[in-house]
């Protein structure tokens, strides 16, 4: 287990020391691939039975294995995508070799911090890891490889809001610890595994208070409205592969924290308390993001709001609860982690091609770049929750859970918001995809991008293959949840043991 934490750190260090840009790229890729290889046994063994090391500080079970797998997968695809992306940026002079070194080092550190979140058993350690993700990714956004006022603004807001939020999460963690001391004596428990065992004995009032702080805290980080405000700024200003990571998995790692807390809070407070809070946060998130998606004029921000929407849906799923609701929520995490990065990758390419993130400046992607356009189209429809793509299935599962519990108002509002989202996404991306390509960046930039495509064939092939594979899995998951995912999710539900 330790090795998978070490590999990204080592990769980061090596990347920072190298001077040749191509070498850095491929070292980073090798690091990501190695990480994938080494993580396999860890993930598989965690699926079958939980493991603890370092005196219970680190721990893996199915749920952490699940999220870890997603982190590693997205880390890998981001590393692949980064090669072509950064080489293009380098070509057009938006970054330099120092920027690249910093970028790749931080990228792998970022992966490390997220992995740490998933394996932390100690809730305070988890908090440390989450805060570390904030710091690393804020630097990635603000200083990734280019210093721009907007990026700094976004990073500042990101770090301030998330740190403030997360401070409350720590307070919640302390209060949890405090509650546990009443049960365990002076040496209270902070390990999730121990807390889980005594969860039913904890003082409900204290745990309620703890959960409120944790929810607001990690909720800020997970992008739940109304404390989501950093998210659109940070996602839109980050480099596309980083946006993909932020959106696809970082939010989920924060939500992972909430889920861990739910499973220890719920036995004492009863399901309605946590459930209702999560449902309310979920619905507000979906509602607010739907409205913003509708009037959005910047496609990266649109995607960011869509992330808020999807986090809302996940929260709704967990809030509705029951095996079906949680199944839907966990499936949704996976689906969102496939669709959203695909869209951010695509938007990165579009941005490189058109030189703008404003929807009105982009036209006719389908005719100028048919493959990319098609992938974007698939991604957009998937995000909009349209069958036969993956997200529909998980959304429908969550809806069914809601109906099972008779939450008609929730179901109705959800459907209403989803329609608005659908309209917003389709009109936004429709404007970009159709028509004739007129808004191309200046001649020279276009030439360079063409030249870039010729000179760096391999990265392009890699990127395109990755994106095609993601798109195909989006479609495949719309028709069938493979057995291994199915059994993983079921094990996760058992691990959480919620209701």
């Amino acid at each position, binding site marked *: 287990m330790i090795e998978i934490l070490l590999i990204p750190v080592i990769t980061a260090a090596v990347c920072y020391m190298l001077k040749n840009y191509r070498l850095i790229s491929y070292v980073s890729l090798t690091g990501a691939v190695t990480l994938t290889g080494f993580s396999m046994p860890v993930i598989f063994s965690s699926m079958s039975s939980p493991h603890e090391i370092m005196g219970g500080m680190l721990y893996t079970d199915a749920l952490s294995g699940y999220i870890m797998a997603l982190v590693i997968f997205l880390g890998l695809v981001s590393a692949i995508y980064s090669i072509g992306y950064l080489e293009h940026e380098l070509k057009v002079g938006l970054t330099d070799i120092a920027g690249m070194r910093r970028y790749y080092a931080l990228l792998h550190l970022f992966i490390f911090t997220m992995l740490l979140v998933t394996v932390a058993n100690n809730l305070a350690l988890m908090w440390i890891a989450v805060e570390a993700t904030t710091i690393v990714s804020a630097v990635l956004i603000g200083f990734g490889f280019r210093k721009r006022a907007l990026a700094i603004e976004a990073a500042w807001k990101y770090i301030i809001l998330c740190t403030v939020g997360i401070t*409350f999460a720590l307070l919640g963690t302390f209060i949890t610890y405090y509650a546990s001391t009443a049960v365990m004596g002076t040496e209270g428990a902070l390990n999730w595994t121990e807390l889980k065992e005594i969860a039913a004995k904890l003082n409900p009032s204290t745990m309620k208070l703890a959960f409120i702080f944790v929810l607001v805290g990690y909720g800020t980080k997970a992008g739940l409205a109304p*404390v989501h405000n950093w998210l659109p700024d940070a996602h839109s200003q980050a480099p596309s592969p980083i946006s993909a990571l932020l959106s696809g998995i970082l939010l989920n790692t924060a939500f992972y924290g909430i889920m861990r807390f739910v499973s220890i809070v719920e036995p004492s407070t009863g399901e309605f308390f946590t459930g209702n809070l999560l449902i309310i946060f979920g619905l507000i998130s979906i509602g*607010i993001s739907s409205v913003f998606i509708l009037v959005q004029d910047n496609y990266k921000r649109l995607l960011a709001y869509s992330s808020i929407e999807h986090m809302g849906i996940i929260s709704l799923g967990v809030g509705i609860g029951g095996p079906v609701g949680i199944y839907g929520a966990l499936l949704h995490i996976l689906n969102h982690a496939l669709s959203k990065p695909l869209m951010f990758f695509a938007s990165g390419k579009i941005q490189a091609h058109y030189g703008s993130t404003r929807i009105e400046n982009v036209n006719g992607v389908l005719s100028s770049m048919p493959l990319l356009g098609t992938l974007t189209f698939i991604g957009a429809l998937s995000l909009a929750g349209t*069958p036969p793509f993956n997200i*529909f299935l998980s959304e429908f*599962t969550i809806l069914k859970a809601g109906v099972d519990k008779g939450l008609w108002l929730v179901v109705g509002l959800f459907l209403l918001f989803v329609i608005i989202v659908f*309209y917003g996404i389709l009109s936004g991306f429709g404007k970009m995809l159709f028509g004739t390509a007129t808004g191309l960046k200046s001649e020279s930039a276009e030439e360079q991008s063409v030249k870039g495509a010729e000179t760096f064939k391999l990265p392009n092939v890699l990127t395109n293959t990755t994106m095609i594979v993601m798109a195909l899995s989006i479609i495949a998951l719309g028709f069938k949840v493979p057995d291994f995912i199915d059994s993983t999710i079921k094990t996760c539900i058992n691990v959480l043991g919620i209701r």
Partner: protein
Amino acid sequence: MNPQNYLYIGALFFLSGAVVSLLPLPKVKNYTYILSSLGAVSFAVLSLFLLFAPPLNIFSISISPIFEFIFCGDALSGFFVMVISILTLSVSIFSIGYTKDIGNKGLKGFLYNLFILSMYAVVMSGNIVTFLISWETMSVVSYFLVTFDRSEKSAKAGLIYAVMTHVGTAFIITLFFMLYKNTGHMDFSNIKAAITEVPDDVKSLIFIFSVIGFGTKAGIIPLHTWLPKAHPAAPSNISALMSGVMIKTGIYGFVRISMDIMGHGPEWWGVMIIVIGAVSSILGVLYALMEHDIKRLLAYHSVENIGIILLGIGGAMMFKSHGLYTLSAIALIAGFYHTLNHALFKGLLFLGAGSVMHATHTKNMEDMGGLIKSMPYTGLFFLIGSISICALPPFNGFVSEWLTYQALILGFKSPSITSKIISPLGGAALALTGALAAACFVKAFGISFLGIPRSSHAENVKESSPSMITGMAILALLCLIFGIFPGAVITLLSPAVFNLTGSYGMLSGKGVLHISETVAALSPVAILITMVITSVATIVFIFIVSGKKKVTYGGSWDCGMPALTPRMQYSATAFTKPIRMIFKRIYLPRRELRVSYIVKPFFVKSIKYSGEITPFFEKYIYEPVTVFIHKFAGKVRLLQSGSLHLYLGYILITLILLLIFGN
């Protein structure tokens, strides 16, 4: 052979058609549509099994532990499979020639095959999830096809289509959930078995939701606005499928939920459907009259015909609620018969329009004219389509409308005064619709095919390729056959009708439709034979009376003025002017006359006339709603004003509220 195998073989044909189409081999690509037509044949065989054999479970696989795919079929599915198969066969043959010089045809062939498969999937879905996934796949693929030419106009049409469909789907999801919640089952057969557990008012709510949800797809007024935009935007072979069968899946869904699963409801369900049908048919054809874009015109006619179909189905529901099963069966036969017919003639007309546009490169009828001379086959088939859609004997549209009239007149047999009054009024609406449709197609055919070419588009055009003509010929022939042998068609319909109403409705003699309830009879074949015999007799008679006479060809009557020009012909706008004036309360026409003078007010240099009708539903229903939503969204947007302090404030306020109320 096992009936399932026909499905597998058919699906295999379509899938291989889809794959072949994507192969980068131009020679092989051309086989796509041949594969699709073979698939259609295979499904047609399957449909016969479904129609005449007991309900069939085809296969089921699990999607996730919570959901599974179930495909099954009964007579109702079988009927719709048959409709889809017939149209698919001829459209596929048409497409071989039609897509020859179309750009990006690989993708198109791929989507085409998927589209057809998804429609089959919809009508054979056995549970909620399967239905929804198939349904939305169908919508998404057709959305891709609508936006296929990637122009901004198509994109807008596609957007409206996709969003409205999505709203419809939301209603469908909700109604499915209501069924699921009250019965505890997700597959249709179990829901049907447990339907008594659903309270009556919930049933009524489900009914209303199914009207809205499926009606959006079917294009009933006022949920039709996507239809005249989306259908013209798609390539013509796709429009034929969309108009011919895709909107019928809305009818399928509605019948499946409201008549099959829920059995029967109170009288007002049927009355409501009749009213919707009447309004849709009249307004649909009225709007069609004002269109000069040939495909938009046809699209509005789809609204009209859906209305006519609903008159039949509404009648069936109404009679069923009174326990008049025979009458119900007659009405349902009328509705289904028209469903089949509409698929045929609307498919034919869209293919004809496609053929014309292929040759003239314009959709505007005012730029056509005289095409019947350069495109004789297309002209003939379009004429046959026009006669069929106007319900003129001896073609198929006539039979189904006649049956609809019979069913509506039979309303006097029902015990309730509402039914008694509403049904003849439905009949009157149908009469008005029929007359308007005739006017519309005199215009459509007369302006585009007759007269002298109105613009350079219509000059030097060539007849379409043999495969396109074959595709149309099949449909034209079927229009005639289904028109003169109604008995055979009713045999195909009756299993489905029996399942839904518990009666076969009526007996049909050889070549004569006989309704014992009204002692009414109809024999289209006799009408046809009479006309043929009398024609021969007339020719003989004339020969005897006058012998052979000289025929001189001259110019048309020009009042003795110098030569007529094409611009002096009656235009489509002029043709419909009286109707525009008579129905001005509905059209709310706007006209603008711009005159520029050389010497005011005596010497006019030019007069520019422009006129349009107000799209009532868009302007007074949809526009205000979208404007409101956008305004509201604009207000909400201020929440994200960019001020970090404000955001921190949100955190503080959220926390305080949670602390106060959360505990």
